[in-house]
């Protein structure tokens, strides 16, 4: 599983950082940063939920 986030789309709602805090964070500008671009399988459900909750469709999960 590979995770990317598009900072040009991000609106800083913060759902990703709440849902999967080991994978996403908010930088000083409030926008998303991916802290673990290849999270382990147990994080899968949370990461997919973060993708679904993102209101600006900034988070994408790519299956390996």
């Amino acid at each position, binding site marked *: 599983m590979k995770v990317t986030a598009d900072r040009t789309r991000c*609106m*800083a*709602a*913060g759902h990703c*950082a*709440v849902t999967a805090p080991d994978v996403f964070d*908010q930088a*000083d*500008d*409030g*926008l998303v940063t991916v802290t673990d671009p290849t999270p382990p399988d147990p994080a899968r459900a949370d990461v997919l939920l973060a993708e679904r*909750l993102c*209101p*600006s*469709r900034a988070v994408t999960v790519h299956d390996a």
Partner: protein
Amino acid sequence: MTEAPPYPQPRTCPYEPPPGYAEIGERGPILKVRLYDGREAWMITGYRESRELLTHPNLSSQRTHPNFPIVAPRFRSQIARTLALIAMDPPVHDTYRRYLNPHFSLKAVRRMRPELERIVKGYVDEILDHGPPADLVRLLAVPLPSLVICRHLGVPYEDHEFFQDSSGAVMLGTEEESATAAQNLVDYIDSLVADQVKNPTDGLLGTLVRERVATGDIGHDELVSIALVLLIAAHETTSSSLALGIITLLEHPDQLARLHAGPSLLPGAIEELLRYIATTDLVATRIAKGDIEIAGRTIRDGEPVLVSGTLANRDPAVHGDADVLDITRENPHHVTFGFGIHQCLGQNLARIELEVAFHELLTRIPTMRLAVDVADLPILGAGTVQRVLSLPVEW
């Protein structure tokens, strides 16, 4: 062809959908509704369809469009039609949003928690000193969000009652009252911004003066319009969610008992309450700026469209037992804060305010109950922020 049903309709219970919405939900996920002025608009009632619509590139928030749906007379005013962020599309919307994002991020609002706890503790002290019956609207739900946003912006404390009253009138008054209150607010914020330009202080207004006005990114009038929206948006929504959330919990003693037994359930309970009470009823008013295909129908370029938070949050296609309050619901997803690029900027601040307030009330007044029958609580509002005028409790 069945006639378009009226929308919005007033609630008869503060936290339940109006009885007439059942039929609207059954005719969803997309249908035409009739607005107060006789015009028709598309209405989305489905959860998935709401999210699809609100991320569609052909959706516009330009309230100056002649076909833009006006859901209540107070939204006709020029100020309501030109609100910063809310009535804007990209790219200007996104630029403004980026100026504000750092100040409403999770980290920014978490830093505010100790101060929030002190403020809430003070209000609950006052409630206990007052003794039963105590009106939680007057003693907590109205002043708390008002004080918090004033502190965040750096608005002088002695002016927070003026902001509280004026923003209430903007959201809930008649067309004339709303326009007058909005103009009073604009005039006041205008002088406040002028003061900040001369002598910027530590709050968000002073920070924006230093970071954005001094650099020429935005002008004085733009900062005034941004500050107006922040003040209005922060007041009524949080205030009403707090009051309606308390009523809903008190009316569901089984869920309240679970929360008392497991305080760690509070964040999930707040999400479920936000879903269930749908404080904003209508979460989006928009206009199509190109054709939008959704749920097998076509919204044509220039046609108005609305999203019902009340119905999307209780969409049986995604929520099992949607009409049941369950504070441990696995997926309490909702569109109460909207969806898409306009999703609420202050949502994390609102959540933390609710969490701190509920925690303090549950811990210090655990035997709290309504002092009147829920049917006797005075309700105000249809179509935007749902509100009770008073909330007497005893213990």
